[in-house]
């Protein structure tokens, strides 16, 4: 029997040059049926984006790790709302309307999202926050400029006493017009922009972008390039997890662990600098491979980092696990229910703390993840503590991965020239960042330049869950919850 996704894909006309997964043009009925499939949980939504006068929807059949893209032409400027049947699509549809002017018909929320009314200099329409009514309620408005050294966004809390009744987010403040900016750029130029979608995931995003371009062009990069990319990606994961573990503990008034984790993070960035010539390893991954080889003493720098972390990190975990005052803040705080995580197809530590194991490195096993040994840690409690434990276990896995990758690093070239002449080809990639799965999709047009590129950050499906996580908790626990998610503003705002 065909899977629901395969049945759906068979109803449309297949695009000739879309790789590695199929893309089919469908009619409005099939589109609406796809939304129903999502609403019933028979498929997961990977992305939903505009493309001129069309919309694309990327679907994942989790049981089979099968991916497909549906395309609906919108000659009359609209398309049947997916959000009407599947809530995770709502913000994506609002964005499509803001950026492409296509209307989701029957959408449950017709407010703008990234468009704050400031792009064309016209009159700004006040944003209508959702009404909350009840006795003894008041509102706390936070942002866009926050008290810490963090990205801007607005949080509107409705509280009763100390208890949060509702959190409503308003994002879009750091919208930089990334996708519009990429149009007409060469692959190398566009890769630079992709690496600045979300600064903490610069390696993961440049891998995602490069893989989508390579898929479109039908190019396989050399083995050494695959290994060096994965090495950088795991180092990036380590650096981010150290930063976040320390920050969560600091928000629970445990600065000792912030200092300890801060040292681990700094050592990690210095090792990255020694090995690849940049602390965040920015612009080291390029379409066709990597920009430069591992520095001659880079392997030693990374190996001594691993030794240092293996000595220090277990003590940090021991302190965290043994401190009642810390556990009091993190255990049972900010719970995300497993069914919500499944419905939103939330990846990374948000998904894995609530029982969703999806990991693009496992699901699609692109090299070198097809030959190295690692586990995807999984917890079920869904609280701040579980999200921390996912990170702790991922640190251990990434340390093992880094050692394996270094030990099995193949020789040979680390770059392959790309064919420059092919146009009208489309490619797609799903790559695992420390935060979750990054989706990159692109079409290469005339003279090898970008005709359309879409980048969907994992934060899109995590931000809404933060609203759910804080409900019923106290305001003072919000920083803990927020840090345990660490969603990207920039990645989301595009």
């Amino acid at each position, binding site marked *: 029997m065909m899977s629901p996704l395969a049945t759906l894909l068979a109803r449309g006309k297949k695009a000739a040059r879309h790789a590695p997964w199929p893309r089919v043009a469908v009619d409005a009925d099939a589109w609406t049926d796809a939304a129903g499939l999502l609403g019933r949980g028979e498929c997961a939504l990977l992305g939903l984006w505009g493309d001129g006068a069309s919309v694309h929807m990327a679907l994942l059949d989790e049981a089979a790790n099968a991916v497909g893209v549906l395309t609906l032409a919108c000659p009359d400027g609209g398309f049947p709302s997916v959000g009407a049947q599947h809530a995770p699509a709502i913000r994506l549809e609002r964005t499509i309307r803001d950026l492409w002017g296509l209307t989701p018909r029957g959408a449950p929320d017709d407010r703008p999202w990234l468009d704050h009314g400031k792009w064309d200099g016209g009159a700004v329409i006040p944003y209508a926050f959702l009404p909350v009514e009840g006795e003894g309620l008041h509102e706390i408005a936070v942002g866009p400029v926050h008290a810490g050294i963090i990205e801007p966004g607005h949080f509107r809390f409705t509280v009763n006493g100390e208890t949060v009744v509702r959190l409503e987010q308003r994002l879009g403040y750091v919208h930089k017009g990334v996708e519009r900016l990429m149009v007409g750029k060469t692959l190398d130029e566009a890769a630079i922009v992709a690496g600045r979608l979300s600064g*903490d995931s*610069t390696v993961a995003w440049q891998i995602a972008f490069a893989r989508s371009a390579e898929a479109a062009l039908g190019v396989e990069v050399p083995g050494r390039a695959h290994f060096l990319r994965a090495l950088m990606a795991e180092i990036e994961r380590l650096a981010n997890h150290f930063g976040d573990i320390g920050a969560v503990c600091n928000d629970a008034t445990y600065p000792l662990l912030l200092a300890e984790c801060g040292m681990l993070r700094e050592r990690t960035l210095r090792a990255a600098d020694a090995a690849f010539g940049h602390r965040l390893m920015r612009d080291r991954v390029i379409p066709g491979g990597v920009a430069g080889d591992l520095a001659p003493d880079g392997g030693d720098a990374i190996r001594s980092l691993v030794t240092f972390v293996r000595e220090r990190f277990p003590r940090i975990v021991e302190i965290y696990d043994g401190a009642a005052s810390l556990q009091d803040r993190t255990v049972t705080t900010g719970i995300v229910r497993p069914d919500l995580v499944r419905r939103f197809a939330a990846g990374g530590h948000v998904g894995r703390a609530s029982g969703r194991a999806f990991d693009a490195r496992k699901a699609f096993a692109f090299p070198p993840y097809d030959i190295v040994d690692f586990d995807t840690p999984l917890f079920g409690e869904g609280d701040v503590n579980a999200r921390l434990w996912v990170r702790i276990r991922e640190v251990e896995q990434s340390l093992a991965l880094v050692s394996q990758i270094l030990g099995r690093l193949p020789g040979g070239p680390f770059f392959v020239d790309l064919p420059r002449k092919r146009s009208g080809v489309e490619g797609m990639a799903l790559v695992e960042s420390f935060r979750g799965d990054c989706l990159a999709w692109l079409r290469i047009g005339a003279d090898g330049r970008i005709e359309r590129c879409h980048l969907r950050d994992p934060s899109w499906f995590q931000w809404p869950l933060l609203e759910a996580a804080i409900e019923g908790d106290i305001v003072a626990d919000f920083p803990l919850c927020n840090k345990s998610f660490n969603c990207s503003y920039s990645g989301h705002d595009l």
Partner: protein
Amino acid sequence: MRSVFLRNLLGGPATEAAPAADDAAMAEVADAMKRSARAALGRSLAIREVDAGSCNGCELEIHALNNPFYDVERFGLKFTASPRHADVLLVTGPVTKNMAEALRRTFDATPDPKWVVALGDCGRDGGCFAGSPAIVGGVGDVIPVDLVVPGCPPRPIDILKGLIALMDGAARA
């Protein structure tokens, strides 16, 4: 926990206060900071960081300034939670159209005398986002800038050096 405290107490500081010969830049920074910051502002300088549209890369390196290796508070540099307590606005990002007003308001809320540092290539002139219809431009296109620290992102040591340069300039003014 006791073992970590003991190690930190007995093992000497991680802070690179007495830099090794190959780390002369850090010593230079420590010295210069003492001289210039005191001349201009006494013993401390309060910094309010504003992300006006960055990718978050610059923020990561600003955070690093607070780790035990750099420990900027020993120089009297302190990050504040409010612009009303700040001497310096440290602004990152190409300024997006959606953040321009918030940046202007933050500037207005900062008491005089005040300085503005535009951090990173994007803060300088929009960086790789220059030309996007969704951004205004660099920080200087929205509020007056006293100093630019380029880089993508600038290294923590470069941010420190930039703040020193600002202090030197302020001391001479």
